[in-house]
């Protein structure tokens, strides 16, 4: 029996248990919950962990309970997704000093917590610059003569303004450097949490912006964005996705996605734990090392996954490839340069949240 228990102990040592508490969108949000889960799946597939458990609190008040449940039940790493979990994770991580925690999109300053944040404003800036450059190329099918782009926000709240400000600053940057006069239309779906779940309204907003001359619309609106993609198809214009790669949702109409690679970040944390070099503190992901990515060629990860699982056909994948190829290479170059400048700190990208603190 001694042998057995030591075997078990060994197994336990080898096989990490990871638990994750999702944000309110839940599994299947085609956004950062899914992205986070994809990171864990990858870790599982690669044998870093034996399995993982995810919990879906429907109310913020349940988050704490969920986190504690995972910590109590011997999970080695407990991940909280979303800024709403800050208070709960702060509390629970103090209660369980021997458990490792990670939080996505917020900072918790505890010795056992890794805080994963993203420079969404940088990605949004790049997206804005890209849209502003593209909207002038009316030789491309789907691009019109007007110099107008759009932004669709979900709920009218500070976090989403961070995306908006990054985006509009990117547009301004192009206007300044290229001498263009691109205007950005901005609209929000509403002021209650419903605003992240109202694709019908999202579609109307998108149609209104397309009708007003926009040909590229970027969104940060959760499920509401589904309506944008629909509108893009109808009007034969373009959309830009957010968070988790959304290119595959409406093949050929979503120019790109401002990807927050939560999957990579989550994977990184798991790996560090596996390699015994888990460190607490802030890990801020930006355009460098592709923590944030705006991919302008080839297939992005979710698209690849969708192709593998048969959710999209090979033809549809070709459409996406064609669309990416049609992006003029000089624009790709410019975007690359801007990206480098942002990374180098040569461009000062305003952060709505910091500005307003």
């Amino acid at each position, binding site marked *: 029996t001694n042998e057995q228990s030591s075997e078990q102990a060994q197994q336990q040592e080898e096989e990490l248990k990871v638990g994750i508490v999702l944000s309110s969108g839940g599994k299947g949000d085609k956004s950062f919950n899914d992205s986070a889960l994809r990171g864990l799946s990858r870790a599982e597939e690669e044998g870093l962990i034996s399995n993982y458990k995810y919990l879906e609190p429907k109310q913020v008040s349940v988050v704490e309970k969920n986190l504690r449940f995972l910590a109590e039940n011997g999970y080695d790493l407990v991940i909280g997704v979303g800024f709403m979990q800050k208070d709960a994770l702060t509390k629970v991580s103090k209660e369980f000093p021997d458990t490792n925690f990670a939080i996505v999109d917020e900072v918790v300053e505890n010795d056992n917590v890794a805080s994963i944040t993203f420079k969404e404003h940088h990605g949004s800036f790049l997206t804005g610059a890209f849209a502003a450059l593209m909207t002038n190329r009316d030789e491309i099918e789907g691009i019109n003569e007007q110099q107008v782009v759009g932004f669709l926000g979900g709920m009218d709240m500070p976090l989403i303004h961070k995306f908006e400000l990054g985006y509009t600053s990117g547009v301004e940057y192009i206007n300044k450097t290229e001498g263009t006069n691109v205007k950005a239309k901005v609209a929000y779906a509403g002021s209650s949490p419903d605003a992240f779940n109202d*694709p019908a309204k999202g*579609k109307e907003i998108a149609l209104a912006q397309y009708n007003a001359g926009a040909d590229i619309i970027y969104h940060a609106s959760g499920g509401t964005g589904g309506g944008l993609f629909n509108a893009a198809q109808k009007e034969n214009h373009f959309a830009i996705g957010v968070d988790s790669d959304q290119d595959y949702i409406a093949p050929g109409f979503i120019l790109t996605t401002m990807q927050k690679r939560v999957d990579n970040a989550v994977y990184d944390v798991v790996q560090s734990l596996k390699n015994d070099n888990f460190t607490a503190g802030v890990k801020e992901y930006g355009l460098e090392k592709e923590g944030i990515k705006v991919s302008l060629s080839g297939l992005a990860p979710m698209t690849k996954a969708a192709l593998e699982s048969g959710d999209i056909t090979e033809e549809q994948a070709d459409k996406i490839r064609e669309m990416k190829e049609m992006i003029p290479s000089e624009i790709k170059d410019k975007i690359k340069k801007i990206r480098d400048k942002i990374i180098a700190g040569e461009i000062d990208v305003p952060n709505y949240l910091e500005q307003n603190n």
Partner: protein
Amino acid sequence: MEILEVLKQIFNLQTFSSTLRMATPLILAALGGIFSERSGVINIALEGMMLAGAFVAVVVSHFTASPWLGVVGAVIFSGLFALIHAVVSIEYHAKQVVSGVALNMLAAGGTVFLLNILFNTSGTSPSVNSLSYWGNFKPTVYLALVAVGITYYILFYTSFGLRVRSVGEHPHAADSLGISVKKIRYICVVTSGMLAGLGGAHMSVGTLDVFREGMTAGRGFIALAAMIFGKWHPVGALGASLLFGFFQALQIRLQGVLPIPGEFIQMIPYIFTVIALAGVIGKATPPQASGKPFKKGER
């Protein structure tokens, strides 16, 4: 400048089409509400019935690849869903508002639960085939307009309509003439569910191609408001739905133009309804028997 922009947005074909599109689910659900309430059954479960319809349309479209079958499925299923309301409030004399609240909860919980079971996700369903355009609009938009005409005709020019109105105003009178109050109410409540379900299908496989948790976002309640604002008359409800749709269309277009926060513009339909009820547009009198269970032999 601002005024000019506002006027430009008001007198604009795009705004008009947008109004019509956004009014469509409201019109359909409001017509449903009219059937139900004209027969004497309050239906605050329009929201839930729409949601159920939206969900079923996507499920059927997913498994059959036919959005039209989805629409049919939504109509049938929402009718069955409404049957719960009918049984509970007609057969068992439940407080109709309570039954309505329960159905709304059931629809909200049930759709997400089934989303989990069927598609293993809790937020958005997979994309499905959606209805194709007929000209500028989805077919459901025309259906809604036709439904207004049909409802109007049925209510005011057919013997069935006469019975519906009598059952909603004075069920005992109808009963004393051998009209089955229960039967009429069952038919009307189920019809109400079918219309609301069509409204939901319009959203999920008409306007869009997915189901999203809670995607009706309160439209069932706005439809209720439209029904009252339109004084329980199909044409009135059409007008009210268009008005509310217009405000939404305008609100979208005037964001950032007017110095009024969006939150306040969003309140407009609700405030209008309260004003309407306060009698500014003339008294809005519901059918006399609405909300009252019919008990045979009782006066």
